[in-house]
């Protein structure tokens, strides 16, 4: 053992130093020696069932599975030993006797680990002459996943993923021996939020994607790495394009962020990009008040005068903008137009992100997602992460499952984390802040007894429109008192970048306090409704659908203000626009998303934007030019030079670092994926050599694409971890803020009123996700969650209808009796037939309930 704790291991004659205890298969892989495998997946525990990775280890009587053997001092390994090669060949012959070899009609063909490893290690032909095992073909086990059991090699990856990672155990092994098969239990659908991961990790074509089925051969795809545009976790993805259509997205691994996974919303919710109703041309209203396509010059010209009204302009940005867009919006609003009234908080209106500056140099997290796994305790107060930040849910679950981290959940209603939480504090409606205080002063036992160091306190806005000052303030106090780290979870892919770049009424770029604080979203909409603003600029923002008071939003837009809207798709708010400027979607553009740990990850274009649509930051630059300021920012590098100069927190980030992180080509590609994007960008690593070995170094025979599929993409993606900007220390974090603790809403509620909680479910009527038919089909119908006693008092029961009524309107909803605080109800935010923002009024909304 060497001084730094490494051990010397010799594999095929090459000696390396490796950390003891690491798996042989991983150590070999890093040396460029690829040991064939089916069941092993670096994101899950080894099971050693496929027996494909058998290698010879000096001193061991039998071949050993490299996926289950930790390296030890002076281990001598031979992966191309005669016996090992014979075992690999034999194993493939075994696996193929019952495999249908229907590669020509299999989606996996061309990027199939079974195909590729057979070419590399298998026998040339089979000696099996008997009939193969048959099963009923192509079962649709959900609206997203199709199962073909004949192709299955029983590697268990899907079953293990379901059990170990997702924790939902929908997919199981049934029967035994040669009759063993993968199935959902009792023919129930594979109703997991993470089911698509099983398709991606399936080493054969047993699990295929229903939306992608028979759409393309892998070698016809053009592909580029990108980042999911939905939530603030920021899972890296690849976008696969065929014939100018985005036809598939898959997760790319980043062990800092998503490990290897993504949720089904991120994976299947891509259809909006190639949707037929994408905005392709600027529009202005003609004399008949109808939209008419015009040139960019005309559209920008029409918007110029209304945008030159200084402080009488309000700017609202949506959460799916990139960091560069955010820079453009903030600069356009605050410097070029000269208005402080700029905000990006819609659904999360009322979320006081700036409070994070009390414990950090940035208005954001001090913890990383990986810190969850080294924490002893995690405190969660916020929305249900499984619905809104699904992969963060997986990481929290992993922290609990693999690292025994204690999880304390503070919530007025049952959320997914309750399933494994060490302590659940079911607080009164609005009582989250008191519960957090209870963790500090010890009154909230037994949870307080498990508050320990190191600790991560996670907060995110829990219910749209609710004033979170008290809750986040209490979370900040807990962070201070216990020396914990903070994981601040704003909702969307662009939310954190918008804060960083100063799309905020009280913070300028780099978290500097704005000299003249402006109006927040509510204030802007109110001012517009009151006639105090002349112009509204909406950049990817749909206040009528997203702002938690749709009546106010509608009033504001209909008040006669001039509305300039930058959008990718028609929205309800667009109906009130005077000028519409089409925007490029995430797969069509360069840029970065800043995730909830303030990590910037790069998007690469893989598609041309429809018509003349361009990136929002370029739109901002055009508008600025029309207003008389030439920013001179034609491309990504230029924006980053400007950001370096203007945003102190991001001064040290080079465009080159973000774009061209040094990618060592994976040593095993025979023909790595290559493709040209419209911008001329090469989208993946260059081809490499398959390791010299079993076949005397003869090149790999198959596949124009990534020959060994995900494991190898993983190798390359590992070198793109993204960057978290280090922020120059601030002088003091500001004086302690005296905050009025919001009294529990129960105290404030009038008799007969219920505190209204809301929140997005994973599949809803959102502009982007609702364009995917398959996800719309599994969208939940609207409902209201109620406490059993409240239901009884109304003389109703589970499944009955109840009328939920507020000043804003009424809705008749099905009751789900659930574990929610008495006196509170939960209504999903945006399901088909229900917009909860029609019911939500004010910062602590309440509703009345009655029988229909």
């Amino acid at each position, binding site marked *: 053992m060497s001084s730094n704790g490494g051990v010397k291991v010799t594999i095929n004659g090459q000696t390396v130093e490796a950390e003891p205890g690491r798996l042989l298969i991983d150590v070999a892989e890093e040396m460029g020696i690829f040991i064939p495998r089916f069941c092993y997946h670096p994101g899950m525990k080894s099971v050693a*069932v496929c*027996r494909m990775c058998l290698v010879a280890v000096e001193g061991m009587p039998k071949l050993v599975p490299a996926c289950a053997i930790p390296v030890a001092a002076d281990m001598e390994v031979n992966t191309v030993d005669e016996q090992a090669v014979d075992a690999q060949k034999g194993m493939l012959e*075994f696996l193929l006797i019952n495999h249908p070899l229907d590669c020509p009609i299999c989606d996996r063909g061309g990027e199939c680990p079974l195909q590729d490893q057979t070419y590399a290690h298998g026998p040339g032909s089979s000696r*099996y002459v008997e009939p193969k095992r048959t099963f009923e073909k192509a079962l649709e086990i959900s609206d997203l996943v199709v199962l073909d059991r004949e192709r299955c090699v*029983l590697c268990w990856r899907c079953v293990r993923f379901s059990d170990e990672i997702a924790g939902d155990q929908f997919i199981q092994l049934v029967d*035994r*021996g040669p009759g*063993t098969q993968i199935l959902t239990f009792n023919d129930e659908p594979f109703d997991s939020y993470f089911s698509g991961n099983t398709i991606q990790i399936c080493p054969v074509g047993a699990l295929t994607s229903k939306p992608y089925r028979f759409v393309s051969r892998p070698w016809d795809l053009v592909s580029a790495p990108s980042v999911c545009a939905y939530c603030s976790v920021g899972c890296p993805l690849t976008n696969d394009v065929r014939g100018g259509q985005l036809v598939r997205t898959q997760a790319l691994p980043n062990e800092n962020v998503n490990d290897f996974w993504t949720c089904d919303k991120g994976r299947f919710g891509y259809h909006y990009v190639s949707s037929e109703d994408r905005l392709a041309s600027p529009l202005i209203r003609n004399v008949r008040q109808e939209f008419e396509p015009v040139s960019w010059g005309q559209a920008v010209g029409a918007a110029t005068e209304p945008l030159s009204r200084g402080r009488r302009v309000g700017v609202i940005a949506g959460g799916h903008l990139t960091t560069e867009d955010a820079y453009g919006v903030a600069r356009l609003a605050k410097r070029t137009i000269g208005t402080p009234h700029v905000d990006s908080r819609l659904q999360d209106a009322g979320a006081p992100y700036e409070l994070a500056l009390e414990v950090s140099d940035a208005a954001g997290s001090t913890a990383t997602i990986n810190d969850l796994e080294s924490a002893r305790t995690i405190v969660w107060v916020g929305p249900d992460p499984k619905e809104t930040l699904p992969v963060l849910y997986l990481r929290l679950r992993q922290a609990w499952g693999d690292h025994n981290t204690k999880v304390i959940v503070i919530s007025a209603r049952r959320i997914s984390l309750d399933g494994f939480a060490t302590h659940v504090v079911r607080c009164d409606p609005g009582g989250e802040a008191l519960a957090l205080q209870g963790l500090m002063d010890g009154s909230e036992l037994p949870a307080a007894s498990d508050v320990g160091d190191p600790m991560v306190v996670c907060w995110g806005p829990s219910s749209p429109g609710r004033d979170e000052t008290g809750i986040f303030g209490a979370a900040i106090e807990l962070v201070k008192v216990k020396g914990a780290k903070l994981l601040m979870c704003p909702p969307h892919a662009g939310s954190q970048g918008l804060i960083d770049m100063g799309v905020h009424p009280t913070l300028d770029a780099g978290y500097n306090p704005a000299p003249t604080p402006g109006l927040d979203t509510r204030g802007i909409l109110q001012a517009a409704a009151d006639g105090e603003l002349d112009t509204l600029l909406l950049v990817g923002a749909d206040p009528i659908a997203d702002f938690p008071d749709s009546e106010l939003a509608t009033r504001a837009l209909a008040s006669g203000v001039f509305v300039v809207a930058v959008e990718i798709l028609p929205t309800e708010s667009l109906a009130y626009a005077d000028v519409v400027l089409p925007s490029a979607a995430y797969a069509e553009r360069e840029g970065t998303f800043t995730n909830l740990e303030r990590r910037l990850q790069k998007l690469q274009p893989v598609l041309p934007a429809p018509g003349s649509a361009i990136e929002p930051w370029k739109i901002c630059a055009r508008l600025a030019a029309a207003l008389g300021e030439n920013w001179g920012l034609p491309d990504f590098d230029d924006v980053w030079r400007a950001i370096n100069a203007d945003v102190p927190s991001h001064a040290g980030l080079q465009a080159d670092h973000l774009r061209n992180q040094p990618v060592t080509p994976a040593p095993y590609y025979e023909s790595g994926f290559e493709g040209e994007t419209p911008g001329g960008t090469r989208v993946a690593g260059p081809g490499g050599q398959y390791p010299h070995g079993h076949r005397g170094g003869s090149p790999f025979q198959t596949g124009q694409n990534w020959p060994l599929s995900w494991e190898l993409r993983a190798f390359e993606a590992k070198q793109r971890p993204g960057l978290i900007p280090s922020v120059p220390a601030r002088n003091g974090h500001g004086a302690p803020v005296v905050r009025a603790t919001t009294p529990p809403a129960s105290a404030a509620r009038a008799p007969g009123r219920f505190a209204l909680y809301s929140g997005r479910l994973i599949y809803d009527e959102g502009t982007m996700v609702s364009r995917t038919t398959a996800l719309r089909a599994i969208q939940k119908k609207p409902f209201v969650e109620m406490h059993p006693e409240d239901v009884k008092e109304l003389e109703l029961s589970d499944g009955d209808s109840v009328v939920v009524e507020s000043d804003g309107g009424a809705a008749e909803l099905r009751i789900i009796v659930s574990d929610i605080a008495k006196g509170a109800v939960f209504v999903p935010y945006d399901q088909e037939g229900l917009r909860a923002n029609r019911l939500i009024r004010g910062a602590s909304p309440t509703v009345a309930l009655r029988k229909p």
Partner: protein
Amino acid sequence: MAEETRGRLGGTAEEARGRLGGTAEETRIVKRRIHEYPDDSWTIERALDDGAYEGARKAITTMQPDGVIDLVKASGLRGRGGAGFPTGVKWSFAPKDVFPKFIVVNHDEGEPGTFKDRELGENDPHQLIEGIIISAWAVQAARAFIYCRGEFALGSRRLDKAISDAYERGFLGEGIYGSDFDLEIVLHRGAGAYICGEESALLDSLEGFRGQPRLRPPFPAVKGLYGQPTIVNNTETLGNLPDIVLKGADWFRQWGTEKSPGTKVLSVSGHVNRPANYEVSMGTSLADVLELAGGMREGHTLKAIIPGGASAPLLTSTDIAMDFESLKDAGSMLGSGAVVFMDETTCMVRNALVTTAFFEHESCGKCTPCREGTWWGVKVLERIEEGDGRREDMDLLLDICDGIDGRAFCPLGDAAAWALRSNVKLFREEFEEHVSLGRCPFEDEERILVGANQGGGSGEAGVMPQPAAGVPSDADTQS
């Protein structure tokens, strides 16, 4: 009922006993009580009268746990379930400072041809319970589980009754023998999977999961049932403990060989005149065992022997000592001690097919070579037996065996390969004859004995005899 179950052997219990006491010598440790009191050996009254629970009393009241482990190490007792691992050494692998620990009895006897644990469980359950108490004391486990083969209907009822009798008399429960040592025993019935006799699959099954072997390390002694240190011992192994504790290691070592001390219960079946369980000193020659069993049936000659259960490679000669080392040196194994004698009427292709089909049926499906290899083997053997064999099939079968052997996840696959390989290697001409004739050369009814109820030409002998003496009716266990 009693008459009926004895039917195959004919005559009364008395006569059956007479047959067992043949000319060659049995040496009885674990079967002594059954032999001496065939009419009521399973009752607590008889067992107590015969000195049961005195070994456990001695261990708990006069010995330190480590002392018991040392004693068992000194005795050289090796696991009787098949692997032959030294019992005391296994116990010492359990970490001293991790609690709770568990004892699990592997009473899931499923190896084809083996019926010794069944007899021990049915006819001397108290000896087993006493063994459990001693082992639990040695490793300081407060809870034991008996994983009983699901098909053991009578055995499980007898065990159930015996356990409750032992509780009633204070041998189980809190404060055994006035000490502060507590022990609970839980009887669990399996659901009919051979693989659950593999200790880690047994533990998964016991926990309520699919019965499939676990990845090792960690070994059960370190992390077993519910992730806690767990000692898994075979029924016969535990049955030796009371006498070892009472009479000492040297007493035990007077039988058997240096490396395989003590006795072994051999389940003898096949074309012999007196199929039954015989307990003999380790190292007894196979010829003596055949003699004990009354020799081959009249007018027939010995063709092949399975010396240690269906997993064990075949032998063709009785000139071998029945102990772990000798059989290993001969390229076979003692295994669970199931000895099947086959005469010249046996079709070895059919024998290979039946055996391989058994392993295919019982393969859990976890690992590729066992799942696919046994499937393939059966397909090829079926073809040969039905007359569609090809010249290259024999080499293919051997290749399939090589593809499984040493590469499967657990010993089930290896066993399937060993059995098949030895059939092909030792009787290759017979396989080739099938191919060249295009049919099986044996008379249909006589080509192999399968199960006790195989009608026709199998004469007096049966493969699966009932326990020889004092077979009780279910009514015996009703209290």
